[in-house]
């Protein structure tokens, strides 16, 4: 009996240990590589999307964003690297059981009605979907009046809306949206933003690839910036945008004053206009001290403007810095 009690206790302890384990990330990938003939599309990309986290994937055209997304979903085979989706290896189709996906190239069976497309995806995802669920999904993307119409008669924008509804089939735990607003009007873009925010509220992880940086800035917790198939920068918006700048209009700047400016942070600009990027650990006293020192050095201080950079400026800065060493091609 004692041995049996110990076995039961061991099982309880093991179950408790497993229950206390942190959830695996919604997406985790490491060292992803992909070559298309001679061109390297993805070169050692690693990142993770936590459960319930909204992550933006940014980068210029041809940076490898769509290739990365397709590798995560098993649509493109990686030459190297590992993928885990919702705790399962990416090579296992079941890893995609609770994943919704809106591809960049969205196209659905034109001979089916919108309701039939949703029913098809529900069957493939092995989830039950009632007529009411189907109506709700279509209503959520503004297609409630077109449920019985064939997809062949839909405009591109309506097909993209249908794609959003398809991505939401079966209460997914992870939704991957690849350029979800490319065919949408401003109202459609706002609808998608609201939808992503409502997914965030429900604790659904979202990986969002979009060129609309303003939208990404509004909805994403974290951003991964890809360039030339590599991760050029990654972090929370606070980490990426947390840098504060101060713009200065100065006259009479000599070597000593320039050295003082450089001591305050990364300096750009010339003649009498300078921009100083303040270090993240700056406690708010850096600017007054800098101004006082500059005045003491005989510099004429005409204007001091605090500034916060936008994600767009930060993205362009990262991409330009990455391209600066390449020279003309």
């Amino acid at each position, binding site marked *: 009996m004692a041995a049996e009690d110990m076995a039961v206790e061991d099982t309880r302890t093991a179950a408790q240990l497993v229950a206390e384990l942190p959830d695996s990330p919604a997406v985790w990938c490491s060292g992803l590589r992909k070559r298309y003939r001679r061109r390297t599309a993805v070169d050692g990309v690693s990142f993770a999307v936590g459960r319930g986290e909204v992550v933006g994937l940014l980068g210029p055209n041809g940076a490898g964003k769509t290739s990365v997304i397709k590798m995560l979903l098993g649509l*493109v085979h990686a030459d190297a690297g590992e993928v885990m989706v919702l705790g399962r290896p990416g090579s296992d189709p079941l890893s995609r059981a609770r994943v919704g996906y809106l*591809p960049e190239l969205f196209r659905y069976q034109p001979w089916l009605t919108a309701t039939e497309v949703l029913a098809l995806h529900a069957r493939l995802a092995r989830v039950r979907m009632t007529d009411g669920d189907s109506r709700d999904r279509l209503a959520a993307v503004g297609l409630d009046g077109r449920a019985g119409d064939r997809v062949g008669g839909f405009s591109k924008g309506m097909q993209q809306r249908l794609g959003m509804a398809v991505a939401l089939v079966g209460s997914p735990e992870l939704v991957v949206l690849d350029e979800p607003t490319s065919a949408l009007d401003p109202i459609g873009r706002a609808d998608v933003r609201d939808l992503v925010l409502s997914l965030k509220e429900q604790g659904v992880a979202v990986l969002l690839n979009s060129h609309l940086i303003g939208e990404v800035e509004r909805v994403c917790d974290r951003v991964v910036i890809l360039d030339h198939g590599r991760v050029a920068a990654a972090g929370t918006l606070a980490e990426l945008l947390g840098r504060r700048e101060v713009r200065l209009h100065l006259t009479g700047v000599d070597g000593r004053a320039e050295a003082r400016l450089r001591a305050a942070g990364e300096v750009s600009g010339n003649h009498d206009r300078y921009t100083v990027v303040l270090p993240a650990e700056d406690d708010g006293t850096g600017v007054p001290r800098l101004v006082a020192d500059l005045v003491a050095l005989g510099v004429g201080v005409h204007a001091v403007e605090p500034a916060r950079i936008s994600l767009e400026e930060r993205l362009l800065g990262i991409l330009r810095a990455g391209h600066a060493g390449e020279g003309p091609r």
Partner: protein
Amino acid sequence: MTVLTIARLTVREAARRRVLWALVVLTVALLTLSGWGFSKLTGLDTEFGDLTSGQARLVASQLLNLVMFGLSLIAALGTAFLAGPTVAGEIESGMALSLLARPVRRSAVLLGKWLGLVAVGCGYVVVAGLAQFLVVRWAVGYWPPDPAAGLALLAGQTIVLLTLGLLLSSVISPMASGVVAVGLFGATWVAGVVGGVGEVLGNEGVERVGTVSRALLPTDGLWRGAMHAFQDPSALATMGADGSGFPFLSEAPLAVPYLLWALFWVAMVWGLTALVLARRDV
């Protein structure tokens, strides 16, 4: 579950895209024309005098093979052009992306598509073939000796061609795959006729053309087996050795090893398609 879902989707596509309607219209035209032609056979006044009922049966049996060839051609063209856009077209258009991102195995999707196409192709062959038999029976009272085996072999020929169409569609563009599948089907039939001529002439080299082509693509071999099941047994005795060169006369029933080879061929080509599709980036 995935297999049946995709199979149903494939059949529904054929129906909704009016492929089935096109097949029905073509077949009704063929049946009407053949019914009219067969009805003129009895009591036909030729330069040798009126056809006896035996002669009429013989001619009817040969004409039936000719018309059935027409039906098999419709089935072959239909399935080849249905199979062609299936994989390549859906990947090109992007339709495959949202489908394959579901928790499905690509081999299950392929099997579903294959089963759907088999249902459409074989269903067509059986319904149209039976309708043709009834028309011939009504017109001249001829009923083929082994209609079930003949239709099964004709369905087999359709399966071979659609399996080839699927393989081609997973490696080349949709349009090219349909064209190549139909081209190969026609080339194999011509090679079979050339082989028959070689047999009549006693030229082994020419005869081998037919044998080799029948092994490479079993459509013609299965078609010849089907013809044997449709034709009147007296046809061979009447036409003798010279008849072996005639494209709508089959000398012997299908050998079991050849049937097994055809089954193996279908399994092999299907397996190759599954392998290609599993490795393909979409």
